[in-house]
């Protein structure tokens, strides 16, 4: 609350295209309805939809073919590489399909605090309060030996708390999944070695059902044998195919609906109805209606023994209720992705495929095409004559400098427009003192940049010295080679919640006297930015007639939301 950094967000044009694309068949209604009043329509940065279309310029890409900005929501993405964020090993596409989107090596996260887990040896000496130190000494003396456990260095959780120990320090994922499914099938201890008392006994009494994976596997095998028994000819049992399209299955379904007519040709007079799974071995999961063990567990472990919602959500399998039900979480794989323009399918950004390589083959970022906007108060906080706090005083005019910096090598003509008052309940008055200006071209030459910067410096100094200088309407405040600063004046409204005078009310308008909502005290100005520049014509034609110097007029327009500051409550 105390500090507020001004921000400038750009609206992606995809926000308008969404309703149209949603109903492509009966399309004309939403688009034709909106197009005539397009010019009049103001953009409200506070509307709930805007949240999804406003981005800082760093997050935006630019399509050179469509000449427009693209946000991360509207681009289409393609996975280039999958890798584990912990061991940074690349994972092949095929193994992701079979093994799932988690690291199958030894990378795990702590189920309690999500810190990384490391494999440590648990000496045969009983688990002392500080097993790590003890085992360290032992390790130096005798060399590390099993059994092994997963330890969290952040919260000191280790897997022996849930009775999980490993025989080898490698391939933890495979060992863990074996332990997990092995436990599920036989209701035995997780680990073969070691003493039995660490394992919580209440689970044994419970007869807890297996993991989802194991249950699915047994259900699948059960129903496959059922189906192959039913229709031995169709050969469903051996293949993965569920065979709904096969003639055997079709005849079975038909016979279910139409009685005996179709199957009358068969020796059997009536098809045996398929049996459902009715034992746990077949994958049946009886609903646990007896909560006594849960209640007793709750009574003994207390609130601290239960799993928090956040902990349960990051678990691989659902259903954990106590902290003892929480398993180490294998790291979810991360991706490197190519981004494409949604309309023309051109690649906007493409990373190098290798995990260790941080270069990009292609990166069309909006910051290289459209001017960046920075906001700062005209008179800095704490300066003589300036404001003393970061909060804006209601009804007291305050000036801000908007600095536009041109990244392209052409001169840009900028036209700004803004509503006179900000939308929302607390309407602050906004005046752009210089809504039209030109920004000089950027240049590649680093040395030139240095030289010109020195030249630029002098007027800049002069400006900052004379704080009493009058702000002139229609004139740029300051400018450099490829940047221009203009002044915007804001009269913040009071954020007292009081009914509107009746004379100002429109017909049927109802006062909204609710309490101050989140961030409602921020002055956020919608600004419409219109850019116009002359670019050399498209590359194909440009090469043909280079002598003619064909110039093409380009324009681009978009809405921005500028966050200026918070209004002080009094």
């Amino acid at each position, binding site marked *: 609350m105390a500090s507020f950094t001004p921000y400038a967000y750009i609206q992606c044009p995809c926000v308008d295209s969404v309703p149209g694309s949603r109903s492509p068949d009966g399309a004309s209604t939403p688009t034709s309805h909106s197009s005539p009043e397009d010019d009049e329509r103001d953009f409200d940065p506070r509307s709930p939809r805007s949240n999804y279309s406003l981005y800082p310029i*760093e997050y935006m890409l630019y399509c050179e073919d469509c000449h427009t900005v693209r946000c991360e929501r509207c681009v289409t993405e393609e996975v280039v590489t999958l890798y584990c964020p912990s061991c940074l090993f690349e994972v092949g596409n095929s193994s992701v399909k079979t093994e799932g989107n988690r690291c199958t090596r030894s990378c795990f996260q702590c189920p309690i605090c999500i810190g990384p887990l490391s494999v440590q040896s648990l000496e045969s000496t009983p688990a002392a309060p500080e097993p790590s130190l003890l085992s360290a000494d032992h390790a130096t003396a005798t060399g590390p030996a099993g059994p092994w456990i997963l330890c969290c260095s952040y919260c000191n959780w280790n897997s022996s708390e849930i009775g999980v120990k490993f025989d080898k320090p490698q391939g933890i994922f495979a060992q863990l999944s074996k332990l997990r499914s092995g436990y599920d099938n036989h209701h035995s201890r997780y680990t073969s070695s070691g003493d039995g008392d660490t394992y919580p006994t209440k689970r044994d009494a419970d007869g807890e059902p297996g993991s989802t994976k194991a249950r699915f596997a047994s259900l699948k095998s059960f129903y496959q044998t059922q189906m192959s028994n039913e229709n031995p000819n169709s050969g469903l049992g051996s293949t993965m195919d569920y065979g709904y399209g096969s003639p055997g299955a079709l005849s079975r379904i038909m016979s279910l609906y139409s009685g005996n007519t179709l199957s009358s040709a068969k020796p059997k007079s009536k098809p045996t109805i398929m049996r459902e799974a009715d034992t746990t071995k077949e994958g049946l999961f009886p609903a646990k209606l007896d909560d006594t063990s849960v209640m007793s567990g709750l009574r003994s472990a207390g609130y601290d023994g239960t799993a928090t919602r956040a902990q349960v959500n990051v678990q691989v399998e659902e259903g954990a209720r106590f902290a003892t039900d929480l398993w180490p979480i294998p790291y979810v794989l991360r991706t490197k992705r190519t981004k494409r323009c949604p309309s023309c399918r051109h690649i906007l950004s493409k990373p190098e495929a290798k*995990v260790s390589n941080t270069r990009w083959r292609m990166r069309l970022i909006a910051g290289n095409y459209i001017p960046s906007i920075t906001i700062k108060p005209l008179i800095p906080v704490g300066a003589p004559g300036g404001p003393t706090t970061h909060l804006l005083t209601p009804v007291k005019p305050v000036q801000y400098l908007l600095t536009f910096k041109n990244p392209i090598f052409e001169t840009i003509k900028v036209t700004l427009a803004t509503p006179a008052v900000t939308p929302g309940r607390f309407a602050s008055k906004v005046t752009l003192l210089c809504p039209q200006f030109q920004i000089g071209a950027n240049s590649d030459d680093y040395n030139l940049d240095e030289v010109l910067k020195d030249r630029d410096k002098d007027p800049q100094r002069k400006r900052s010295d004379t704080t009493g200088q009058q702000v002139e309407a229609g004139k740029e405040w300051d400018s450099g080679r490829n940047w221009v600063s203009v002044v915007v004046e804001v009269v913040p409204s009071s954020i007292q919640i009081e009914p509107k005078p009746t004379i100002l009310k429109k017909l049927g308008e109802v006062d909204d006297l609710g309490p101050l909502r989140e961030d409602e005290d921020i002055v956020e100005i919608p600004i419409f930015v219109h850019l116009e520049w002359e670019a050399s014509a498209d590359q194909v034609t440009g090469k043909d007639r280079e002598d003619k110097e064909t110039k093409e007029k380009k324009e681009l327009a978009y809405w921005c939301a500028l966050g200026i500051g918070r209004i002080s409550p009094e």
Partner: protein
Amino acid sequence: MSRKPAGVRTEYIETETGNKVARKANLVGTQHIMLGGKTVIMADAMIRGDLARTAPTSSSSSSSGTAPGSNTAVFIGRYCFLSKGCCLRPRDASTRARHADDTPSAFTYMPLRLGDHVFVGESAIVQAAAIGSHVHVGKNVVIGEFAIIKDFVRVLDDTVIPANMVIPSFTVVAGQPARIVGEVPEGGHEAFELRELYRTVGNNPQPASV
């Protein structure tokens, strides 16, 4: 590190390679600290160069990566910025010996490496094994032992990175313990550049450009 004798007692010592080291910086064991050049070390920043690997007799032949300066405790790349009150501290390898994969070794310190354009915020404590290039470490961050931070990573303020954590490239991390909260956007790479910041400090600081 060669120091230029200055007549007037200035705030910073500026070396031939462009390092700007505040006189009030707390550098211990400077012979074990390697600066790549154009690095800013502000007042009260502490670098524990004395925590270098002690005896090359023990097992340095197997573990030392580079031949020159095998005794160096802290490597710092170009255009790094160490803010006020931060601390770079190599970790002793004895804590590593408790890890299963490590062969036991004598009591020694693992070197700490920083890439280029690494910003370390105020009062941050860095005990990492390696920090890549273009990394922003916020205020009051604690980076645990042997954590590895790859390139283009932003560590937000007050984050605690647990020991042994690996943070992949283009990641934003926050929280205690640190968790990945986002990706660095494509357009955000230039924000890691510290050349501009380098110019704005020193004995004759340049004003920041617009």
